[in-house]
């Protein structure tokens, strides 16, 4: 707790007018200009709060660390270790994504729900003027930040993971995994954007994180316990399952093709952001 004290304000209010009218004579700002300003504002907000910026970086570092650990122990006990269900060395190296996706999704929720919890979102809406612009700006900043960190983290996990790989399969060079890198980054970016959408839809950190973890990550695992005759109909269309198809070079028969998986996953993200935009526009802020 800081014990900061206020220095007595000696400046006269007349000084408030020192720069008065400086912006009234300027040209009318274009929509593009105002959108760029809104994005810059969200960028400042994202990187000046530890709960978002540091958490995102931590998720990236955890992905690399878990990738190295899983790779190093890949062959130590094939009956129970990671290699028991992940035989492909690239999949082993990316074993930490399961943790990173949760953290990154939470970051997406926090970026939005955090502003609702303090009431800052009302200031943001009134200052920016267009709520849709606020949603798009937040989405753009989260997407750019998460995509960059995810690419770096996945590449790091693969490079360092292959270096310490202890399994029996042949290791893979980074250039041969570009499709996996891209798929991983798109998946994590999409998960963060689903978090953003849930933040706007639910306006609460607890509800947003609960829904994200329950519906997006745990729900599909529970549903997979149902008989195949039922799960075959819809399981592969869920975001997490489509994501698995995007992130792996080894596709299984119950997954969508890579191209279809991208389409389904992107559709989920756009649909949820669209629902968020409609609700935010209709509701009182």
């Amino acid at each position, binding site marked *: *707790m*800081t*014990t*900061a*004290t*206020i*220095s*007595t*304000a*000696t*400046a*006269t*209010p*007349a*000084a*408030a*007018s*020192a*720069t*008065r*009218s*400086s*912006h*009234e004579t*300027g040209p*009318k*700002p274009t929509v593009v*200009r*105002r959108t760029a*300003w*809104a994005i*810059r*504002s*969200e960028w*400042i*907000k994202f990187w*000046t*709060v*530890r*709960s978002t910026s540091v958490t995102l970086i931590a998720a990236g570092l955890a992905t690399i660390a878990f990738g190295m650990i899983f790779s190093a122990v890949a062959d130590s006990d094939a009956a129970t270790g990671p290699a028991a269900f992940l035989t492909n060395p690239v999949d082993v190296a990316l074993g930490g994504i399961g943790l990173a996706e949760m953290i990154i999704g939470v970051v997406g929720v926090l970026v939005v729900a*955090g*502003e609702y919890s*303090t*009431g*800052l979102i*009302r*200031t*943001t*809406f*009134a*200052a*920016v*003027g*267009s709520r849709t612009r606020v949603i798009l700006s937040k989405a753009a900043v989260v997407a750019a930040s998460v995509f960059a960190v995810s690419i770096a983290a996945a590449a790091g996990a693969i490079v360092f993971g292959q270096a310490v790989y202890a399994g029996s399969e042949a290791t893979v060079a980074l250039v041969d995994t570009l499709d996996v890198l891209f798929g991983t980054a798109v998946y994590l970016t999409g998960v963060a954007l689903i978090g953003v959408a849930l933040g706007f839809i639910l306006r609460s950190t607890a509800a947003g994180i609960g829904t994200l973890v329950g519906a997006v990550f745990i729900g599909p695992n529970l549903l997979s316990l149902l008989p195949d005759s039922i799960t075959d109909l819809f399981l592969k269309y869920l975001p997490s399952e489509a994501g698995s198809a995007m992130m792996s070079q080894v596709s299984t028969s119950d997954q969508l093709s890579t191209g279809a998986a991208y389409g389904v996953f992107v559709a989920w993200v756009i649909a949820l952001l669209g629902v968020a935009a409609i609700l935010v526009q209709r509701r*009182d*802020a």
Partner: protein
Amino acid sequence: MWDSSSAGNLQDDDMIEVTNLTKAYGETLAVDNLSFRVQPGIVTGFLGPNGAGKSTTMRMILGLDAPTSGTATVDGRDLANHDLPLTSLGFLLEAGAVHPSRSAFDHLRALAVTNGISTARVDHVLDLVGLGDVAKRRSGGFSLGMGQRLGIAAALLGDPEVVMLDEPVNGLDPEGILWIRHLLQDLAKEGRTVFVSSHLMSEMELMAEHFVIIGQGRLIEDISADELRSMASGETTQVRSDQIDDLVSLMRGDQVTITSQERGLVSVRGLTSTEIGVLARDNGIALASLVPEQRSLEEVFMALTHDSVQYHGTTRAGLAA
């Protein structure tokens, strides 16, 4: 001081215009067919008990809540239709609306950039509100008063024509209250429109030259400070006399209310103290005392809003136990 008589000529310049504004939450009307205009050049106090609908009205002026019916415009347009909202209307809604781990400087920088406002202006308003020295610290460590100052800095960022503050005095110490009074009055002198809400008349009576008073979402008075003061004086006169019964029978009339408080003492409404004195003299009645009752603005405000207060407390119940 501003000559309030000239304010009446500024009708066309009304900066905030609320017309037949209504906000319903289910069956409850938070704001009920409210109409008023706020003029530039003076501080206008927006007064009402808690729950009167002040904040809801302000949120509708900001375009955050959609009116059920009616309009609320800033300089003739919805705020959302202004190209640079912060330069048209600077506002303070909730003092705590800052992420606690973000610094005051970063908070204002992020807000400023949405309207293309420079970082130099951020430094300027931080100095203006006295937060220059703590600008880089986490705002979570701020006191309530510092939070209010940060909120006021945010309101001044865009050097706006209209400044609208919701309960800005909350949490300020006496020095801070004095500071904000001078700040708002000087902003008004510069020709700006200053619209400030409070639930306490005592906070506003030295600051505002005009009052919009509401209760249960409805307009009670839209009145200048001078008119309100005239309401405060001479409404009731306390009269004491040994011949009070004779005087009472002389004073009786359609518009006159006389209440007896104790033997030989009555309080009279509807006659001025001068009229009562003349009446006594002409009829040879000796007065022991003749005291016009001067009410404070606070008492006038309480009387005006009494019927619309939702939760009445009592000063007696429970104390005896």
